[in-house]
Structure formats: C-alpha cells, structure tokens
C-alpha cells in the first residue's frame, strides 16, 4: 500500500512553516508509522533533500518522546497508544495523511515536527516529588498501602509525559499531566506530608508556563496513550480547593 503524507515543515531560521506533500514508496502494512517516516526520510536523503525532523526514542510507547498530530489527533487514530505504536495498517491504501507537530504556546517548535516540552520538567521541579534524601528510609513493609489505593496511584503514575493532552486541548491545558502526578503522590501515605504544598506549587508553575485552563471537554483523556482519566483532574481540583481552604499558598 501507499500513502500521501502532508507534512508540516519548518526551519530554524525563523521563517514561517508550511505543509509539503510526500508520496510514500510501497509500504508494508505491518510497518510502524515511524518506520514509514524512516523510509520516507531515506528517500529524501538520497534525493538531496533534508529529511523530516521528528522526535522518537524507545519506539515501544513508554518513553514519551514521540509526538505528532496525525490527521488532527495527537498520537493518531487509535485510542490508548502513542504514535510509535501506530501501524500503517490503521490507514487505507491511497489515504492522504496529515502530520503536524504538537501545537501549544508552552511547547515551542524547534524544527519540522520537533517541539520543546521543558515546561513539564519545570512543573515537576516545582513539586512533583516526595522530599526524601537517599539513605535512612524505613523498611519498605513498615508502611502498608491498601491494594486499591496502590492500584489507583499506579493508574495515575503511568503518565509518560508526552504532552498529547496539551496538544489535544483547545485551551492547551496541562491539567491531565499535572493531575496525574498530583494524584499519584497525594494518594499514597508517603505523599501526605507535602500534600497541599505539592498541588499549590505545581498548579502555580503550570499557570506560569502559559498552559490554558481546563474546561472539561475531555479531549485530553481521549488522546492519552495511557488512558489516564478525567477523574484525576476532579481529584486534583479537590486537592487544590482543600489546600486553598486551609489557607495554603
């Protein structure tokens, strides 16, 4: 099968970007979407053109490096998977497929499809941790955690930090990302001492980075490659309100 790719190209010279169309060579339906881009890039290279820059690394859906908005959807047509786990068999022979970068003010474009997501690191630096120094921790079994609580914390902790939630949101809100980390740590007994401080600091940093507000459209949940649910945003809102009522800043 073959596809026609409409790809966003943008240089580093400050000039405006635009779409270019590239017909693919014959593809094997079992190829991954990124392997298809590899093949197209090899062709471009041999033709003396610059290959398409795109982010990728583990290619097994866990590192969160790959991005891409494919036909208007972050991480492509299938639910619960990242772009690197999207396969050519999800498209039909002859389809035109539109490929764009994640777009959000807080994720500046470097080149073509590559964006910078440092804002997420800065949100974690503001409070996405439990303050324990190496050494001196009590025995791991001295603090039982109910299985359902541990499982729910794990559901939230699965977030891969890819930023698809931001790219899908009309407000470019990072609430799902922040809510996942706040919920993971605030659910666990270990996270209690910093509970209020954490949510306040992370939300403050989220706002400072220029992410928009949440209007509960649910588009983030729909594109999350780890199926992290909106209920965590509700949980974070409660955490935030409780901290506010206690006069925490």
């Amino acid at each position, binding site marked *: 099968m073959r596809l026609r790719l409409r790809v966003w190209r943008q240089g*580093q010279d400050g000039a405006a970007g635009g779409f270019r169309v590239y017909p693919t060579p014959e593809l*094997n339906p079992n*190829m991954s979407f990124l*392997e298809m881009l*590899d*093949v197209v890039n*090899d062709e471009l*290279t*041999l033709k*003396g053109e*610059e*290959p398409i820059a795109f*982010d*990728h*690394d*583990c*290619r*097994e*859906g*866990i*590192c*969160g*490096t790959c991005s891409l908005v494919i036909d208007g959807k972050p991480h492509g047509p299938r639910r*619960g998977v990242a772009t690197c*786990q999207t*396969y050519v068999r999800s498209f039909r022979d002859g389809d035109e497929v539109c490929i764009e970068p994640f777009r959000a003010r807080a994720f500046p474009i470097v*080149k073509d499809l590559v964006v*910078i*997501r*440092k804002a*997420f*690191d800065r949100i*974690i*630096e*503001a409070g*996405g*941790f*439990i303050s*324990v120094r*190496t*050494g001196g*921790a*009590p025995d*791991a*079994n001295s*603090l*039982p*955690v*109910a*299985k359902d609580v*541990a499982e729910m*914390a*794990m559901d939230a*902790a*699965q977030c*891969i*930090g890819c930023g698809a939630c931001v790219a899908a949101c009309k407000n470019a809100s990072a609430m799902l990302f922040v809510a996942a980390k706040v919920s*993971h740590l605030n659910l*666990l007994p*270990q996270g209690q001492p910093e509970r209020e401080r954490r949510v306040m600091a992370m939300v403050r940093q989220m706002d400072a980075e220029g992410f928009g507000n949440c209007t509960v459209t649910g588009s983030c949940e729909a594109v999350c490659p780890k199926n992290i649910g909106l209920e965590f945003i509700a949980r974070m809102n409660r955490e935030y309100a409780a901290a506010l009522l206690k006069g925490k800043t």
Partner: protein
Amino acid sequence: MRLEAKIPGGSLAEKWGRFKDEARLVNPANKRRYEIIVVGAGLAGASVSATLGELGYAVKCFVYHDSPRRAHSIAAQGGINAAKDYPSDGDSVRRLFYDTIKGGDFRSREANVYRLAEVSVKIIDHCVAQGVPFAREYGGLLDNRSFGGAQVSRTFYARGQTGQQLLLGAYSALARQAGLGAVRSLTHSEMLDLVVVGGQAKGIIVRDLVTGELSRHAADAVVLATGGYGNLYNLSTYARNSNATAIWRAYQRGAAFANPCFTQIHPTCIPMSGDYQSKLTLMSESLRNDGRIWVPKQKGDRRPPARIPEQERDYYLERMYPSYGNLAPRDLSSRAAKRICDEGRGVGESGLGVYLDFAEAIGRLGADRIRERYGNLFDIYHEITDENAYEAPMRIYPAMHYTMGGLWVDYGLMSNLPGLFVLGEANFSDHGANRLGASALMQGLADGYFIAPHTISDYLATQRPEQRPGIDHAAFAEAEASVRERIQRLLSVRGQRTVASFHRQLGKIMWEHCGLARNAPGLERARGLIAELRDEFWRNVNVPGSAGGLNQSLERAGRVADYFELAELTCQDALHREESCGSHFREEHQYPDGEAKRDDEHFAYVAAWRHDGPDRPPVLLREPLAYEEVEFVQRSYK
C-alpha cells in the same frame, strides 16, 4: 600497565563496610566548590545526580533527550531484585549474591556482586519512600514474583512498568534537586568527547542538539551513566537513540573497555517481521512465570497452535532444564530457541519463533488474574502483531537486549582514568558473562544511590577544586577541535548511501557472526567485513544538512561511526576468548549435549582492552578473577 581493582580487605560481608569506614570525606562546607559532571539520566545517572546534589556538590547532568525522564531504563518491564526475603522462601544476601555470580557464569568480580546484593535491600526501602507504586497484596504489603535463574521470589514490580516507575522516582529526586538549584539539568546535550588533563578526567565537550553549538565543561569528576552498546546490532530492544558514543570517546582517551563480547540476547521478544524494521520489542521475562514455551515436536508442522494436541508439543525448556523449566536463565533459553528453530521446528511465517503459551495459566488462575499481572504486555503484543494472546499463544524469538561488557572500573566504580566514574550498564562490573532478569534495575540504582556517592567523595577528597583546569586549558581546545573536525568530515562526504543502510548492514554482520553462537572463522570474517564497511562509510555516507542547528542525520552518523570501531573490538574480544561462558557461546567449545564449556584454567579473567592509538591494535590487559569465598563450578539448571 596493571589494572588495580582496589578491593578492600576482610571477608565478603565486611568489605563494603570497611570501604565506607575508611573512605576519605569532603567537609560539608567545601562540597559546593566541587563540580561533578554526570552524563545520562537513566536509573544510574538520575539517582547519582540527585544523591550528589543532596550531599551538596555542584552537579551538572547532561542528557541527549528533551527531558531527563526519557532514558531507556524507562522501558524495563519486569522488576527489580532485592534480597528482602519478604515471602520467607529462603532468600538472603548471600543467596542473591551467589545466584548473580552463577548466573554470570563465574565471570564477574566477586566483591562487587556481593556489595550489589547487600545494598539491594536499601533500594526497595528508598524507592517506596519516594512513592514508587510497587505491586501490593491485599494486606497492603509488597508483592513479589520470581524471575529467571532464581528459585526464590525476590522480584519487586509495578505492573509491567517497573523501570518506568523506578526511573520516575529517580527523575523526581533529580527534579527536586534541580528545583533547589543543586543540580543543573542540561537537556538536548550530547557528550562528544572526554577531556583528560594530566591523566585525569577533567571535563567533556558537548553538542547542543538544538542549536548545534559545541561547549566545554570542566569538572573535578566525570560520571558516565550512558547505558549499553547493544544498538551496534541495529535491531535490538534498545531505544533507537541509545548509543555508545560517550563510552567510546572515553575509550579513545584511555579508559579500558572490558569484556565487550559479553552481549545479552533476550529470549522473549516479538519476532522480526520485515527489512524496514527499526527495533525489536521485548516481552518481559516475567511472562515466563506463567507462560509455557513450546514448539511442535514434528519438523515443519504448520498447523495452528490450537490444533496441535498436547502430546505433539515439545515444552523444551521444561524438558531440558527440569528444575528451572521456563525460568532457565536468558542465555540458555535464547540458545535453546535458536537450536530448536535451526532444527526447523520454529513457528510463524519466518520459522524464527517459538510459542509462549498462557492457556494453562488462564485455565488455572482465570483471565482476570493474568490481565492484572501482565495486562499491558498483552496489550503491547496486540498492538504490534494484531494478535490476541489471551486466545492464542504469543510468538517470541531472541533479540539483542543488554551488554554486560562496558568500561572497566575498579571496586569504587572508577575507570583506569582517575576521575572518570562509570555506572550502570555502561560499566562491566556486576553481571559477568550473563545478566539475570531484574538485576539491571538493581545495579543501576545500587550504583547511583548507594555506591558511587561514597566512592566519588573518596576520590574528590584528593582533588583541589581551585586547581581544576579551566575550559581555556589546551586539552579542552584540542578536544573541541577534534569534535569539530569529525563533524565536518561526516558532513563533507556527501556520498550515495544513507546512515541507516550502513547501520542495517553492520547489524546483520554482527547478528550473524557475533550473536547467539560464534566461531573463529565467522568472527574473522566479520572483522574483515566490518573494516570494509567502515571504510566505505567514510567514503560513501550521505549526511544531509549542516552542523548548525538540529540535524538528526548527523547525530546518527556520529553514533554509527563509533559502532564500527566498537563492533571490531567486540569481535576481537569474542575471538580471543577461546571458551564458552554465559552469553558468549563459541561453537568450538561445547559439551556433546550442546552446553557451554567454560575454561577456568585459561580464561578466569576480565579482558580489558586499552586503546593504543589510531591504526594500532588495542592492548589486552587481564584482571584475574581471584575468588575468595566462591568456588568455580559448572553452572547447572537441570
């Protein structure tokens, strides 16, 4: 030159305590004056950066990723070992130590492995305190499972995402230090050379992958935690951008490279499907707890698995290794799969695959219990193959997965270049000729949280920060010029072949001749082929674009250029080691039943290769493996 392992005196159980008691210390007020460079932010790099930052040192942590949370430790699925003995099934520090030494086929350093087992218990405590959501039982206590090469359940896990959760724990500790200003986290930054002044590691040269600018960074100690070199095989379970450039530059600046031929091939990966393929995906070894591996007894039996009756199936691991069964160590399981497929009994379209079957476990435990244990792995399998493993068995085949070899380090994890520390998969120290499952995470975190902070302090106490060479020193200028020259060389070839095509070809040579089974004529041939290919690369590679700005082709070209040289050294090491041990199987050295024939009389040593200048053969340095408390015995899992 002799390699000094500097192992402390006393019994195995006393050594690490003695080291810590006698280690030199740096006054708390002086710590901030010491600069430490850490390259890499996987489990080892992130944990050592965070811990050194907590201690008060001035740390810079460099990663090529856009965020330190993306290192490939994140992809480890199954679990982390620790000698906690929570299930009371007979585990102990001594037993974890012995299993690891035996699993490594008696080619690792005894004192290091003992220390690893000793600190393993603290890792779990620390990670739980950080909020790592390990699996729990209904009573709220931690759950364990078993892994290859062990008869106890000592593996802690977080669904099939243990590496991710441990890495996010270490990353959050690193982020906390970054927020406090103790660690500077530099992303999109690739180390391209090591700067050595007066025989000591004193800095690095870094390329900013976004702007293309080169920069110089000086330090009192340099820590490499950059992972393994398995991507020289092209197709592997590594992340696409994992690379050997940092350790290879260090090798070229004088750091010895130990046991490069000890490369692990993992038995349970999704089989290859075509030439375009960019990576192979691992299915965690933990699946072997409940999955049974089999092939048809009859050669060429093409019936679908459900139509092959029980008595016509060969559960070959259970047959060959009755006491460990499907949990036989990785090297044995991988080789058995290859042997079975070579006999023509492999399954799937290519015949390069064996079944991993959960039908019996689903019948015994129910699909829900299996989903809870391995749900995400079954999902991954489904995404890639479009097949449902709850209904039909998975097809798996071995793939390149991990490298036990790496830069040589002493007991303090310092290379023969003083001031250069090497942690995690990048060093050679703990896994000998074969690594057991769930031990890589243990080693990365042991090195980073609990070992290197002590040994680096011990070294720094001998250094005077005010005498640290500045970045205007001639050695920095020379290193930067050589990086610049190499980049220009890559860009100026403008040949007819892509970097990817060279990488693919190199990978095929290595897989064929230096993979699961090796022999002298094959290795000789591989060396010739690699030298030819390397020569063609420098005449005919096409690297488009320029050095200013983001250029992914240039990044990959530099990494592949290094793989040629490392591949040659790997073949040379495999050729010189005239024995079979662990992952290194020389066909000339086997017992009639096909088991590996180790030669302790001649090869009970670490082979550390030292660069002796361009176009000169490397020099072999031997560190004898003198065991004080363990006896060399033939490994048996039967």
